[in-house]
């Protein structure tokens, strides 16, 4: 197999780590030295070789460990995966899209053999070899959405489209940045975005909804979103806030480099062919501050973005109390030199830290 999978945890001893390969391909979300909301959508049709944008569903060194973490979350709380009755067909659509994409994009890791509706699915990293009948739920150990998303990194919201509106009517959500599928299920697009500050006034959601309603089969789209997390936690759900919220108080000048993580979501949007539903995969990437500042451009820029972020956003993203500590740390990696435009690390052209 081409990818060396880490043995690591996202809880307890937090043995999660990024290799040099994972650091350099990290989806750094800031294309300039400041940040404000925008719809920032682009088409999701590949990207530079080796980048997280190259394949339809990125598979990286964290795959096997992330799936083990998902299984733990589901065992404790089965409501993290739900599908309203009319969304079963969209579940099959999701299963087909992921199986076809992964088997084509990673033929050394995944195989799909189809003989009519008789399908054989081989997932080598997870040691699965399973034959089932497409569109026949009785041939799977669980529903099609749960079956395939127990084998795919990232969260999956499945949105039904009715009357020019999107409804969150199914999903697999175990690696979320403080929101809850069980709370949001059945809500429409404006309802589940209600807690976000500033963006409503800016008309962002109205424009985003129009864009999403028009996403067409064969033409997926993507965008990045970001927040901050103390310790490499995948499951930062409201249900478990009592476990992880308190960890935000454990930051010190000594441990911030290893404990504080930038959390980036690569969000993609696919029109599903049979159900006409919209699939919304949300893939979470974590990087510690100490790893991030090994890229000089990113260290400079992150300091400037965090420093200049409006207070409402730092509050909404949950790090307003820790912002002074973060700025103390990050300012050590900002020598005031200009940064090049765009998100890429530009290691060959950016000067090293001048202080």
């Amino acid at each position, binding site marked *: 197999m081409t990818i060396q999978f880490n043995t690591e945890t996202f809880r307890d001893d937090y043995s999660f780590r990024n290799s040099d390969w994972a650091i350099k391909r990290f989806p750094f979300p800031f294309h300039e030295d400041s940040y404000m909301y925008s719809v920032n959508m682009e088409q999701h049709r590949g*990207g530079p070789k080796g*980048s997280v944008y190259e394949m339809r569903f990125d598979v990286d060194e964290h795959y096997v460990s992330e799936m083990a973490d998902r299984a733990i979350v589901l065992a404790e709380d089965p409501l993290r995966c739900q599908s309203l009755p009319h969304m079963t067909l969209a579940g099959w659509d999701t299963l087909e899209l992921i199986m076809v994409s992964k088997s084509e994009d990673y033929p050394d890791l995944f195989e799909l053999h189809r003989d009519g509706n008789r399908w054989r699915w081989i997932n080598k990293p997870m040691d699965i070899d399973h034959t089932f009948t497409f569109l026949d739920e009785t041939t799977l150990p669980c529903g099609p959405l749960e079956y395939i998303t127990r084998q795919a990194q990232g969260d999956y919201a499945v949105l039904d489209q*009715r009357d020019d509106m999107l409804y969150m009517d199914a999903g697999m959500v175990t690696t979320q940045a403080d929101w809850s599928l069980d709370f949001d299920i059945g809500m429409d697009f404006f309802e589940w975005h209600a807690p976000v500050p500033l963006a409503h006034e800016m008309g962002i959601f109205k424009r985003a909804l129009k864009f999403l309603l*028009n996403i067409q089969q064969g*033409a997926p789209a993507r965008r990045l979103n970001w927040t901050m997390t103390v310790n490499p936690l995948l499951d930062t759900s409201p249900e478990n806030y009592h476990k992880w919220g308190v960890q935000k108080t454990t930051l010190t000048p000594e441990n911030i480099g290893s404990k504080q993580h930038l959390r980036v979501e690569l969000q993609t949007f696919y029109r599903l*062919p*049979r*159900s006409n539903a919209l699939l919304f995969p949300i893939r979470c990437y974590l990087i510690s501050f100490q790893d991030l500042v090994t890229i000089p451009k990113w260290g400079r820029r992150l300091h400037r973005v965090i420093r200049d972020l409006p207070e409402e956003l730092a509050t909404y993203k949950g790090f307003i109390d820790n912002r002074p500590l973060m700025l103390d740390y990050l300012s050590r990696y900002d020598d005031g030199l200009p940064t090049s435009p765009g998100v890429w690390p530009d290691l060959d052209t950016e000067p090293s830290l001048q202080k």
Partner: protein
Amino acid sequence: MSAAPQKAKAGAEKIEVEVSAIVPVNELVSRFEFKRRDGQPFPPFSAGAHTVVEMNDNGRMRLNPYSLMSDPADTSIYAISVRRDDEGRGGSLFMHRHVKVGDPMTITYPVNLFPLDLRGHKHVFLAGGIGITPFLSMIATLERMGGRWEMHYACRSKALGSYVDELTGRHPDKVHVYCDDQDEAIPLESLLDGQPLGTHVYVCGPAGMINWVHSTAEAHGWPKEHVHSEEFLAPQPGKPFEVRLCKSDIVIQVGEHESLLEAIERCGVQAPFLCRGGACGQCETDVVEADGEFIHRDHWLEEEEHASGKKIMPCVSRFVGKTLVLDR
């Protein structure tokens, strides 16, 4: 994020096809079947979806949307049915007169503006004339899923009803046909009265029929969200007018029988589109300057946007007046 060096493409993804069969259905309607030129299976589609067919009519590009009427589970072919419209703008005439088996054509990926509401406990289909086509894929889907449905189909005469024999033969208890020449009509009021809670109604046919179903259902207390319709708005002819496209820096003439969108395309300017029927929102264009009156025909813009004169949907809407400058 500007992650990848790619530009957003206008409109829908396209598929290169070959006409694999042309089957006369009756004296007005023919079914056109397509195979992919690359030999691959077609993408699956959802019931109610349409495709836009590109027709190269002697150098003039015509693009017409047609409902996909084949079985969504059969990815080896796509099929559409085209009713010949002798008074129309020429697309259906081109299909009937010039397209032959073996011809290469280009169609778009499926787009669905008329989906089934899969929450429905029962689905009632009301078809008028060629409006039968989206229901054929809906019936195939519901039959496979074990869904409850019934159909009421109004046509001028039995001979002009497309697929009447197949439908009544296969589903004698579920399909009801009403012929104008027998003075038969869909008994809409009693039909709406007798439906179980959670039933959804779908209507496809002429505008008058669609309005009749919506208003009757509303009068009978049906929730708006349970009544669905699809009407492809063909661009209506109108007086020729002149438009300046400021980004492209050209002045173009829109003819009596072409749409503003077609005129823009004819002059070599790329513009996004999907449905070409005023419903999808893709071709929304900003008006930079206007002195005159808009004839908005779309279903997309809000009333206040129509009134503002700041936006136009070039696929179906027109303009009467001295000056029109568009941000295109």
